[in-house]
Structure formats: structure tokens, C-alpha cells
């Protein structure tokens, strides 16, 4: 999120994982549960970190680019799982839903294991599509309120 994030591209593996974690984190619990029900072979997993809720301090910058300051906190839940002792999945989500954090961690682990392709196609892709659609809708709603102001006297000096 820092200003130079764009100048320093992440290695592909990291960039991919950031993307799917972002998609998963933005998915409400109901949708995650529904997708979990569709998993044909539900992998057994154990908690490396029990699900828990806490706070994250949200940092911002004066003027968007200037010195940092602490804006305020937000509730955050997290969970870390290991799939049959192999892939480790990490779930960090906003809010207080422990199960949501757990499912994000499980899907994150699945993405790194033998079921990665299935998970990418059946979980991440549809979620991402739905999120993109929602964003487009929000954007077009906003675009409908775009205005043109005209200055009445001095014309178009700006």
C-alpha cells in the first residue's frame, strides 16, 4: 500500500497470492460457506493459529502522500491452518468473523496444494468476477452523477 508499491513489483508467486487473498478477504462469510460446501474432497486441516479477533491500527498519510499518522483501528480476525501438514494457509479479514478468517486460510492453503487448480477455477475466479461486476456497477452509478459546472461571468479561465 505504500506509495512505491507500484514501482517495486512483487514476484509472480507473491503477486498471485496477494490477489487471491484479497479476493477471499472481500468475500462475505455466507458466500465462503456456500463455496466450501461445493468442495468435492474437503481436505482435513489443523490450526497452526486458532482463529482470533483483534485490532489493526490503520495508518494513513497527511495529504495522502505526506507524513504518516494513525487514523484509527479496525477489527480484524485471523487464522492460520495447515493442510495435512503440507501447505500453510493464512487468513486475515476485517471484522469479527472467526469462521470467515478460517475459511480464507483453508482456501489459501488449498490454492497452494494439489487442489490449487480446482480452487482457482471454482472459488477464486467466480468470486473475482462477482467483485469486478460489483465494482463496475458502483463505478457506473457514480458516473451517472458526473456534472459539468459552467462559470457564469468570467468564462473559461480555468
Amino acid at each position, binding site marked *: 500500500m505504500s506509495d512505491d508499491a507500484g514501482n517495486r513489483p512483487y514476484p509472480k508467486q507473491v503477486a498471485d497470492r496477494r490477489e487471491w487473498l484479497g479476493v477471499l478477504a472481500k468475500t462475505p462469510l455466507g458466500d465462503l460457506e456456500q463455496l466450501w460446501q461445493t468442495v468435492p474432497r474437503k481436505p482435513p486441516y489443523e490450526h497452526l493459529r486458532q482463529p482470533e479477533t*483483534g*485490532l489493526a491500527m490503520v495508518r494513513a498519510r497527511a495529504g495522502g502522500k505526506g*507524513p*504518516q499518522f494513525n487514523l484509527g483501528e479496525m477489527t*480484524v480476525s485471523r487464522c492460520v491452518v495447515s493442510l495435512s501438514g503440507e501447505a500453510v494457509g493464512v487468513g486475515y479479514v476485517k471484522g469479527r468473523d472467526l469462521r470467515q478468517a478460517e475459511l480464507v486460510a483453508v482456501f489459501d492453503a488449498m490454492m497452494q496444494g494439489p487442489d490449487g487448480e480446482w480452487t482457482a477455477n471454482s472459488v477464486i475466479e467466480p468470486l473475482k468476477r462477482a467483485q469486478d461486476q460489483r465494482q463496475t456497477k458502483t463505478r457506473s452509478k457514480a*458516473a451517472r*452523477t458526473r456534472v459539468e459546472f459552467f462559470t457564469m461571468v468570467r468564462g473559461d479561465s480555468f
Partner: protein
Amino acid sequence: MYVAVKGGEKAIDNAHEILEEDRRGDLELPEIGVGQISEQLGRAVDRVMTEGSVYDPELAALAVKQAQGDLVEAIFLLRAFRATLPRLAVSRTLNTGEMRIRRRISATFKDLPGGQILGPTYDYTHRLLDFGLMAEKAANEPSGETDPSDAGDQKSRDAEGPIPKVLDLLDRDGLIETFEAGAGDEAGEEEVGDLTREPLTFPAGRDLRLQNLARGDEGFLLALGYSTQRGFGNNHPFAGEIRLGEVDVEIVPEELDFPVPLGEITVTECEMITQFKGSKEQPPKFTRGYGLAFGHCERKAMAMALVDRALRTKELGEEPKAPAQDEEFVLYHSDNVESSGFVEHLKLPHYVDFQAELTLIRKLRQEHDDPGSGSEPAAERAEAGE
């Protein structure tokens, strides 16, 4: 000195019972749900999150419900709950330049890249009570589906991608102050003060001032901001840009060595620009004031930006003359949990203190009526009575 009292348990229990009844109101009417509050009283929820300093719409809505809509009380409830949670992380700095914009306006430039997007606003409404809302299913209730036909594909394509910041336009011409490079790129690299960890000390850096203002009472900051416009602080600001929308929050988890997004939050951002005549060291230019709030809190963000600029008086070599420029005055009185705590504690029994004052006044009266009867000077005793 406050002397504690005992007793009254039964009466207190009964009072809380009545409070509960009072909160619930008429049982014939359905109880209001937390979801209804966060959806339909969103601005109240946003204010509670901002000043309660915890982003969690559900908790804030619960606080609003429990406090019967008393927002300062709700803010207090949220702050108290916050104290029960551990801090798991500090986020990377928000990138408001990448905001997914729902509203974005500038009062300084008519035509700007990305355009003026009004979004959901009370501006330009007639402020007439809408009696349609009284009948619960109003005739013009939105269907939830907006008609995309007049949106214009071109327009929505225009809005794709990040919309550039207005102040960057001035920045390009060197007419506005710039930020020093290398202000620390990542969380942790820069020492950032935190009021929730250490008490406020003076002089406060801009980090502490902005955190304090972000948590500060909207009404207090609004009045102070207004005072600077009316001449108490010599501020002639322009709303360079106001934007509302969603930004990602990212943290670096303990388990990984790269940042991951944990979701998005809604924020309102305001950048005010103010003319600066210049000083011996600095040429005339525009200076900035910054406001940022959780949710849709436009008035708060604007007031915060005005007061932020006013508090930069010393840094810019201006002569502080007005209350809004006095950082001790502003920062010590901005927090509504602290101020209502101190004001409202006056309701609690002060019987012993008052008895002491009563005795003192009686003695002073006696001396006043019959000079020569007392041996000590009255002023000395008055101090002893504090």
C-alpha cells in the same frame, strides 16, 4: 477532591431496569435491528466509528442502538469495547489515490481529469422534509436497481482506473507545498506517535495532531473550523478535493513477509488549500490542510482539514492569535469521551466537597460581616478549601 460514596445498589439496579424499558420504547412497535441501523442510519454509524476510532459498522450500530441514538454515549461504548481487544497489526499506509470513488468534487477546478462526481450527497437538495418517508413504503422507494441506460458506457469507462488527485495538478506547477521525500515508506520505518499508547505531550507533531483530530468531536472541530473562516485564525481556504469511496487495507502478517489485503474500508478524505503569503524562508504558495474519516463523514473531514491547517501556524512561521491555532487548547478539548466524562462527573455525589465549601463560605461571610474576628487572611483559607 472527590470523596466516594456507598450505597444505593437497589435503586441503581431499578434505574437500569427502567432505562432498558425506556430504550425499548413502545412494545407495540417492532424492535429495531442492528442491520437496519447500519444500513439506514449509516451516517450515525460512520460518526461513531470515526470518533470511537474503531472501524466496525456492526459494533458501531450496536452501540447506537444500545445508547438510544446518543452518539457520544455510543462512541464511549465503542472505545470501551476496543480496550478489550489485542492489537494484532499495524496497516500499511492507505493509498487514497487508488480509492474506488463514489463521490469526488473540487471547488477549485471546474474541469479536471476524472470529472466532478456528485455521488450520494445532500448538497443541492432543498432540505424539505420528505413526508413520503413517513409512510413506510414510500412511493419513490428506490428499487435497488439503478437504470444503467442513461449512464453511458463512455462515462463509466472514463471512471475506470484511479482518478488523479486534484492537488497534484498544483503540485506539478510548484504552487503548493510538497512533502519531503523519504518520509518512510512502510509501516514501522517511521516513528509514528500513537495516542492510544502514550499520553499527549506538547509540542505535538503533525502525526499526533491528525490522530487526535480524526478521533475528535465533530461539533467541536466544526465550530473551530468555522471560527477560522470567520477571521479567528486568518484562514481563507478552498476545498481542493473531497473524495468518498473504498480503499484496501493491507497488513504484513506475522506469518508472511509481504503485505496482504484484509478487505476494504470506506473513507472520506478532504484536502483544503489555503493561501500562504510566504515568509523569509519560504516563497508565497498554497498550503495544505488534511482531513480523513471512516465512512461517509464529509463535514467532519472538512472541519478536520481546516483545524489541521490552523494548527500548522508555528511550523509555517505565522503568529498564533486564535483559539484554533492553539494546539493545547484544541487537542486537550477535542475528545468527546474525555470532555463528557469530566463535565458529566459533576452529576455524581459531591456531598463532602460541597459541605467543605459550605463551611468555608459561612466562615468567610462571618468575617465579612464582622471584620477583625478572623486571624488568617481570607484568601489563604479559600485556597486551602480547593
